[in-house]
């Protein structure tokens, strides 16, 4: 078990105790608290993409920013053209990104590594959706512009994905241990983590389950990887330097996100708050996932 799994475990116990007391947590409260943690920890984990990329690749600043922002706008256009395919695309990118951040340095052939990242991530997301499909459907059907997303939550297709990708993930762990790609301790840690993820996604509502994973197991872990890398690269690099580095783009992203959501809430933008939230997260995930792929390789 690593420190991030332990933080996840603390989160699980806190939420279990909250449910023990309140039995149910109102959807609005779930959204408020989840947004707080996603903005506080989730956004900053992608706030130094430019720094990481410049350390890894020789590229002009102008070219980087044009490509980075260009990808954001290209994805926004895709959202405008097709909400359904954009969501599918977003889920695929996220799946790969989550898998890569979980096993960044596993020593297997690149093609198998990429397949494994992708399927590990799909197993994670399909598990989250499989256990919470009714809740997802009710949220989706609540807004006119998200109704189209209901097609994504098809139980029969989701079941196939859920069982096949989870079986693949478990079998991969056994293969890795037999091939000595991971040691016994890592093997038990990963199996324990999968069990913990299943238990929490099953027990907790969709938003809480996702936030807990995204904040504790993904964002904090990635930030730690970034910090370790920069500490190696820069003499006397301290945690305060890291926070200073994260702050500008984090604040900018949070302000911009808040502005868009306020515009949506006041019907100035023609997208509902949930759809706009998914759109914002997805368009910043695309370039971030590409940068992290370069970073981890």
């Amino acid at each position, binding site marked *: *078990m690593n*420190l991030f799994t*332990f933080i996840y*475990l*603390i989160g699980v*116990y806190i939420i*279990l*105790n*909250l*449910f*023990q*007391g*309140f*039995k149910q947590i109102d959807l609005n409260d779930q959204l408020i608290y989840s947004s707080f943690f996603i903005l506080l920890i989730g956004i900053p984990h992608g706030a130094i993409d430019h720094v990481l990329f410049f350390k890894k690749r020789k590229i002009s600043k102008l070219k980087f920013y044009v490509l980075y922002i260009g990808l954001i706008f290209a994805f926004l256009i895709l959202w405008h053209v097709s909400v359904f395919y954009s969501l599918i695309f977003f889920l695929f990118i996220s799946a790969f990104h989550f898998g890569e951040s979980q096993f960044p340095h596993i020593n297997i052939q690149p093609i198998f590594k990429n397949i494994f990242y992708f399927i590990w991530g799909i197993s994670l997301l399909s598990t989250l959706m499989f256990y919470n499909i009714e809740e997802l459907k009710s949220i989706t059907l609540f807004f006119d512009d998200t109704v189209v997303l209901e097609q994504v939550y098809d139980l029969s297709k989701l079941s196939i994905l859920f069982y096949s990708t989870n079986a693949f993930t478990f079998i991969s762990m056994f293969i890795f241990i037999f091939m000595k790609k991971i040691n016994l*301790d890592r093997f*038990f840690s990963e199996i*324990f983590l999968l069990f913990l993820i299943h238990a929490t996604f099953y*027990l907790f509502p969709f938003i809480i389950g996702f936030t807990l994973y995204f904040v504790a197991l993904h964002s904090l872990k990635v930030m730690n990887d970034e910090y370790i890398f920069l500490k190696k690269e820069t003499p006397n690099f301290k945690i305060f330097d890291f926070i200073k580095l994260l702050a500008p783009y984090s604040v900018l992203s949070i302000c911009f996100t808040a502005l868009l959501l306020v515009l949506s809430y006041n019907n100035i933008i023609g997208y509902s708050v949930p759809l706009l939230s998914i759109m914002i997260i997805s368009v910043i995930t695309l370039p971030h996932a590409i940068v992290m792929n370069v970073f981890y390789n």
Partner: protein
Amino acid sequence: MLLDIVTKMAPDDYVGFTFFIGYMAMAAASVFFFFERGSVDAKWKLSLLVSALITGIAAVHYGYMRDYWGATGDSPTFFRYVDWILTVPLMCIEFYLLTKLAGAKKSLLWKLILASTWMLVCGYIGEAFTDGSTGHSVQWGVLSTIGYLYIAYTVWFGEVAQLAENSNSDVIKKGVRALAWFVLVGWAIYPIGYMCMEGGWLSSVMAPENVDVWYNLADAINKIGFGLVVYGIAISESKSNK
């Protein structure tokens, strides 16, 4: 009394079944650890004695719990907590004894004993003195969980983990890690069981009447397994010193 219970025990009473199994398994493990003290170096004898005490104390209480269950059909909360309050701090002592050779200080021993006692006393107040309100259950549940998380942190990342890492013994490193897994996975049944009690949020996941079965199985695995890991370390280290 016992004969009376035995004749009344239904063949499908799986809770009673696990109480009988728990009682005999703990007693057998206790005899095993006690007699195996002769097979290990002097510095490991105390660890094996503590292992024998853990299972021995548990065997006695399992005897009481088995009779209580047989006579009343109720969950023996009182005896269970008496057993845990004695045996869980003893398990924490095992961590101290293992890492003592790598320089563990007495303060570690007292911190672990205090945290485990805190965890159990808070759990007992939450479970046994309930006024039926969820506030009571949550308040004592949270306090108890803090004790558990402190122990888990200490053995996984804190003082115990660091001492094991610095011990220069692979056997101790692996042994402490194995015991840490017992704390993480095995001991998790206790807070989960707490939330499964009548009116608890997880009572729909695990029915309150089944909690005793899980407690009995977990107790047997945790206490005997814990002792066996300590025994494995003691035997390996004793052999390597010959």
